[in-house]
Structures are given as C-alpha cells and as structure tokens.
C-alpha cells in the first residue's frame, strides 16, 4: 500500500523458477515471483495459464518439479499440512467449503494447526468481525449458504490458521458483480486492518489490478510481464489482452 520501493526489503514469500508437470504437460515452466510483507500481489492470466497450479504447488498440493519456494528466507516444506503450519493458507478455487459441516465447524477445521483454545476463540472473533454474516449463520450448514457467503467462509476459514501469507485462488469465480465488489472490499480491509500479506490469482484482471499493489502476468506457464498494478492498468498490451472492454 506504500509507494516506497518494496525491492529493498526481503520478500516474505519468494517463488524461484518453479516448474510443475502433469505427466507430459508442463503447466509451469520456471515461474518466479516475490511477495513483500504487507503487500497485495496479483497474478493474472487466461484460463490454463497455470495460475491455480502455482497456488497448489506453493501449498504442496501438487508435486513441485523444479525451483524453490521460501517463506521469510526459509525453504517451504513439501506437504500441505506443513505448509499451513509454516504460515501459508489458501482459499481454494471454487471455495470448497465443507458443505455438510456448519459454518462454525468449517472455521474450526481451518484452525486445525492451532493448539491454544483461547487463540482459536480470538481468531474466530476476528473473522466474525470481518464477516458479520458468518456469525449470523454460525450454526447453519455451509452447503446452505449463498455463493458469496461461501466465499466469505472460505476466506475466513483460511484466516483461522493465522497465516503470514493468505493465498486466494479466483475469489470472484461464479459470483454476481455486486458480490464480487463486496468481497474485494473485504480483502482490502483484511490487508489493511490485519496487515495481511495477500497473493491473489484472478481471471478478473481489472478487479485484481485495482486491489493489488503489484501484479504478474502468467502466460502458458511463464511470467511475461510484471509491474505496479496501477501502471499495468494503463498498459496498452494488458488492456488489449486482459481488460478488453470488461467493466468488472
């Protein structure tokens, strides 16, 4: 959120030359990016560019082929549960809330790595402050929530583990424009009030660029453009390829 050059500080999350293959298909071909403390960084790109693969590789949910990922200078462990304990949480693509569990239980499972009951309570409080709607529906089954509420729950659930970096995979997917605006407003608030560092991948490039400080463009597995989001919003190439006439 500041204009001082972030490059002087040490990145909190650093991805170096990451490659991932699904059989013969190479989804990521040596992608690199940095996320500095307190920043919102967006990765934009078309369908199949490798955005979700990047998120899943950071989480240890797909096998990383080559390259390395570090959090605060320390190499990230290989398996998902270790990554979460290390301090990275994901709100996955398509929300993936646990439909047969209640809102409260969804949040509890998000807090799985936390040991201290008081800490869990405190974190629940914070999430309810961010999303009062979730508190109203705390005993309702997650499957009965609206799409927007499910997205709030997915974000809240990811926050429960008290991550140092929050990853968001397509939070706008399948939501009405008015709901998307609301969700993105909340994300800005989470960044400001909690000082949360956020890495977001989005197909909705305009929204993502408006929200973020910096952005990367991912194209068929490689980073092709990077820069300040404000600059990219005015970039002719970006406008033609990703913002073409879209208002949302």
């Amino acid at each position, binding site marked *: 959120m500041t204009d001082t050059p972030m490059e002087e500080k040490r990145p909190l999350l650093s991805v170096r030359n990451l490659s991932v293959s699904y059989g013969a298909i190479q989804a990521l071909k040596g992608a690199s990016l940095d996320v500095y403390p307190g920043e919102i960084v967006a990765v934009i790109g078309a369908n199949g560019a490798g955005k979700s693969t990047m998120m899943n590789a950071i989480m240890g949910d797909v096998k990383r082929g080559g390259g390395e990922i570090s959090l605060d200078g320390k190499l990230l462990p290989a398996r998902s549960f270790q990554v*979460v304990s290390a301090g990275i949480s994901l709100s996955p693509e398509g929300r993936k809330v646990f439909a047969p569990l209640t809102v409260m239980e969804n949040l509890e*499972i*998000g807090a799985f790595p936390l040991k201290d009951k008081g800490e869990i309570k405190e974190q629940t409080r914070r999430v309810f402050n961010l999303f009062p709607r979730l508190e109203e529906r705390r005993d309702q089954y997650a499957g009965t929530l609206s799409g927007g509420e499910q997205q709030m729950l997915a974000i809240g659930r990811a926050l429960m583990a008290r991550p140092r970096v929050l990853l968001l995979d397509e939070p706008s997917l399948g939501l009405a424009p008015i709901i998307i605006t609301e969700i993105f407003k909340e994300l800005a608030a989470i960044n400001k009030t909690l000082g949360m560092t956020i890495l977001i991948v989005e197909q909705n490039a305009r929204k993502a660029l408006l929200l973020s400080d910096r952005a990367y463009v991912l194209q068929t597995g490689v980073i092709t453009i990077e820069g300040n989001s404000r600059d990219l919003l005015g970039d002719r190439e970006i406008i033609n390829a990703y913002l073409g006439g879209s208002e949302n």
Partner: protein
Amino acid sequence: MDTLFQQIINGLSIGSVYALIAVGYSLVYSILLFSNFAHGGFLVIGGYICYYILVMAHANIWVASAGALAGAGVSAVLVERFAYRPIRERTHVTLYMLIASMGMSIVIENLFVVTVGGRYKALPEVIPMTPVSVFGFATTSAFDILSLVTAVVFLVALQLFLSKTKWGLAIRAASYNLRVTGLMGVNVNRLIAIVFFVAGMLAAVGGIFLSARYTLFPQLGGITTKAFVAAVIGGLGSLPGAVVGSLILGLAEMLTTGFLSSQFRDLIVFFLLIATLIVRPSGLFGRSVGEKV
C-alpha cells in the same frame, strides 16, 4: 408371538455385530472412496489374537479383547501403510486400491491357513450363553444381549469421537473432501491411519463375537460380505446408513430363519441387495455416486 420377539432380539443382536463391521467399512469408504475387501481380514486377526491370548496366556476376556482390538487396529494401519498408501500417492484411480485390497484379503486369509491351519477353532466359553428372559416376553441368551450392548457402546463411542474431537471433525471433513482437508493443515496420512485403526478395532470386536457365536477359521472374514451388503443398503460411506442397513439385514435374516427356513437366510441377504440396487442404488442414506465398489 414368543418366536417373533425372540427372533427380533436375535436379529438386532447379529445386526449390531454386522453394524460394527459395516461402520468401519463405510468409514474407510467415505474417506478413500474404495471398498476395502481386506476388512474381513482385520476381523479374523482380531479373532485369532483373542483366541491365542485366552488359550495360551490363560488371560481373561478383557485382556484378550484389548489385545485383539489393538492388534487388529495396528494390522489395519500396516495394511494401509504398505499396500494402499504407495498406490494412493501415485494415482487417484481408486480401482487399484480395490484390487490391492482383494489381494490383501487373500494374503491375510492364507497367512492363517499356513501358520495356524485351516481348522475350526472354538473360543473358550468366556462369554456367557445362559438363557435370559427378556421382560417375561421371550427368552434369549445372555450372549445375544451382551453382543447387542457391546455393539451399541462401541457405536456410541465412535459417534462421540467423530462429533466431539478435533480429529473426529477432521475425519468428517475428509469424508466430504480429503484434498481440501489436507489444505486446512491436517496431516492426511495420519488421518487415514487413525481411520484404519478405528475400523480395524471395530472389526475385531465383531470378530470376537462372531467367533464366539460360530467358530474361528481363516475364512471367517467372508462374513464381511454381509456387512458390505448392509453398508450398501444403508448407503456406502454413510455411518448411520451402515448401522440401519445392518439392523435391517440382521432382522431380515433372523425373521427368515424363524418363520421360513434357515436355508433362505442368505437368499434374503442378496435379495435385499438386489432390491436396493434396483430401487434406490445410492442406498437409504447415501449420496449418489457413480461407482459402488
């Protein structure tokens, strides 16, 4: 009237033992989405451990049961660790695990044939078989009452574990989506090990009662077919379904035995299976999924 009551109690008693087996079966299915055909093996392992502790160590039934439960639980964890996990980590196709489980079932059965022999063994009479009058209505054996009570105790304990503990919550989440549960910071391999341990333990309880009711032999695990049928009737992957399906099956078997002929006993089991598959393929409580094996 007497026969009816008696057969209902017998039906509930045998049905509750099926339930112990079916619930473990369904629990594994709900997490890994394959039918673990080696489940019957855990039951046999439990039965033999109980038998040998009773016969060779002359211990009481409590010690023998504790040993059987722990032994079957650990065996289940080992089977998962060495037969299923290597497959799980390479592919998402659950059919391979199904085939591996058939293999493990044959391995376990024949391990007993080779080591202790295929002869029928009778458990020493550690569970009382004395006749008991139920509210003056009917007479049944203490054994039937005991197996019913034990099954209920274990099922309630399982329900409490699933609904009240942190790992229980994780297991319920995993039965909806295992992958996302891993993304929540849950060690998925540990979760699966816990599920197999619990399933193995429950199978051992069933194994002890079945070997006391009938006899103990390496193929006793074949009775899991009935628990499988019960789980399908109730809806594979659903725990309440497994319990209800088992009770229906136990009652159907015993009422058939009491009023028709014991020769129709197995016929009614498979009749119910086929009827379920035709009328309601997802079972009483099941979610609809494509594959059922």
